[in-house]
């Protein structure tokens, strides 16, 4: 073994320790316990933790609800942030671009919990929006914005959309402006240029951002818990309850694995549908 190789393996140790001790081992442990049910004296092997998920409507309904909302919020994150990313990379003067990008990042400095409470203040019955609307005479009494699907979605969107903006900006930056000019020169309308040139070019960034946003949203606990209402249960809350309210770790582990399976499946489908490769998106 040459010196270089030794150094390589030496430097690999922290990464391997991290992967094995903090990710692989706990997952194997959870996977095993998800097939166990506590018996009288010792735990026994059983599929019950999984079958109960399909039997109880509240479980799979929450699950479905979470997946649909997470996909919706991911699409919304794209719709909201793409114009911003395009503006920052292709329209605005380069002098201001980095300053404006920094402005975008500022909310990340505060932390999720604080920004989510910020939304409580904004959306509450006596929050900024309701008070302004009453003051303007548009409404008489406060409208319920907080503790709804709407407020939950806003919170989830807000805390995740930057992770869509940055990868999309990176791909747009690498788009040669002359491609846009060439398409225009060949008679393409603005919409055609957007659909045939800009979107295909930015696709790796969009999928990359989409994966991050989807994972963040589907696995988030804070926003659904604080901004969501009683009626819209987020699946992470079910997992939380199993672990910390009913202390049924085996059940919680099974739910955790179901979430892992569905998010992997959605990401795989997104890659298939967009014709992207994971290696390309990841780089």
């Amino acid at each position, binding site marked *: 073994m040459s010196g270089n190789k030794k150094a390589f393996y030496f430097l690999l140790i922290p990464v391997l320790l991290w992967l094995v001790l903090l990710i692989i081992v706990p997952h194997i442990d959870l996977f095993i316990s998800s097939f166990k049910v506590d018996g009288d004296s010792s735990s026994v092997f059983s599929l019950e933790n999984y079958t109960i998920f399909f039997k109880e409507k509240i479980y799979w309904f929450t699950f479905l609800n979470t997946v649909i909302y997470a996909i919706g919020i991911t699409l919304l994150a794209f719709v909201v942030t793409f114009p911003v990313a395009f503006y920052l990379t292709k329209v605005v003067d380069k002098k201001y671009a980095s300053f404006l990008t920094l402005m975008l990042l500022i909310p990340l400095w505060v932390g999720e919990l604080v920004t989510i409470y910020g939304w409580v203040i904004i959306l509450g019955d006596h929050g900024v929006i309701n008070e302004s609307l009453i003051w303007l005479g548009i409404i008489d009494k406060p409208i319920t914005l907080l503790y709804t699907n709407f407020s939950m979605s806003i919170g989830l969107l807000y805390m995740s959309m930057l992770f869509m903006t940055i990868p999309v900006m990176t791909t747009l930056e690498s788009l040669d402006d002359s491609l846009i000019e060439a398409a225009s020169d*060949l008679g393409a*309308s603005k919409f055609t240029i957007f659909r045939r040139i800009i979107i295909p070019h930015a696709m790796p960034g969009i999928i990359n951002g989409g994966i991050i946003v989807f994972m963040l949203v589907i696995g988030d606990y804070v926003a659904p818990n604080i901004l969501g209402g009683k009626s819209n249960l987020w699946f992470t809350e079910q997992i939380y309850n199993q672990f910390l309210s009913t202390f049924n770790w085996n059940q919680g582990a099974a739910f955790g694995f179901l979430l892992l399976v569905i998010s992997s499946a959605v990401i795989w489908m997104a890659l298939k549908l967009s014709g992207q490769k994971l290696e390309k998106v990841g780089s």
Partner: protein
Amino acid sequence: MSSVLEVKDLNKNFGDFKALQDINLNVKEGEFVSVLGPSGCGKTTLLRVIAGFIEESSGSISIQKSPMKGISPENRPVNIVFQSLALFPMMNVFENVAFGLRRQGLKKDEISKRVIEMLNRVGLNGYEKKKINELSGGQKQRVAIARSLVMKPKILLLDEPLSALDRKLREYMKVELKELQREVGTTFIYITHDQSEALVMSDRVAVMNRGKIEQLDTPVNLYTHPNTAFVAGFVGENNRFELSGSDSYSITTKNGWKLNMPDLDFAPNVMFMRPEAFILEPTDDLKDINKFQATIKVVLFDGANTKMSVVVESGDEILISLPQNAKFQNLKSGDTVNIGIAYHNIKCYEG
């Protein structure tokens, strides 16, 4: 032949900077016109104004008699071959060439027929399914040209399309581009900073400097009768001397080298002599020439382009073409040679 492009008194300012000043340019149908100039002379700006990507500050552009003011790039009957080629990497060769035709909403068979025909014409038959990143530099070049030509533009604008190629391929593409233009008969306006490209390919060349067209002429006239000192210095190789004085029958360089120059009706301050205009060992019967002695400093052998650098008595240095025949093959540094230059081969300019 009728004129296809008329540019009249065109000006373009970027703030205080005058990128284009009083440009007048008439291009006839089927002509190959080059716009030649150093970087920053405004040639690319001119092309972009013609294509409609930049709006002119004043003046007018007409294509086939119809004014282009306010018409967007996609609606002008011109197409560009970009310097970066700007091929669409997300599409294959066929889709790249078909892109413009699809925008016109033509029938599938018609598009397919025209694309295949054009790919054949540029020598890329069988490359339809190839991806752009699988092509060589020269092949990309042809796709870019095919993509524009398939639109049957009234004028094809080419923005230094050969600059990314290596020397040998560039020499080859020069000839091929010229032949292609003759075959299809489309008017070409070719932007370049490479005088050899401009001289070899063009019917006429517009030499630009600092936003102005200095001279618009055939390559031969540009070379033999440059109108301005800039053209004399920029087009072809030249020996340039600043002058310290002149009278009606002679000029004197800054170093004090005096040459006869009868019938001067102005006071020049710069003078040019082409390397190949000098006559080695001039015979006595030659008239209207300057004769002088010089010492060879160095012989720069380069086959048919062999030159030598000689020094005259005043210390002025001249580059002289050295014909590769038996008579002059034995010249070496340190030798003294007799040299002549005809009056009409000395080009004098003010400024």
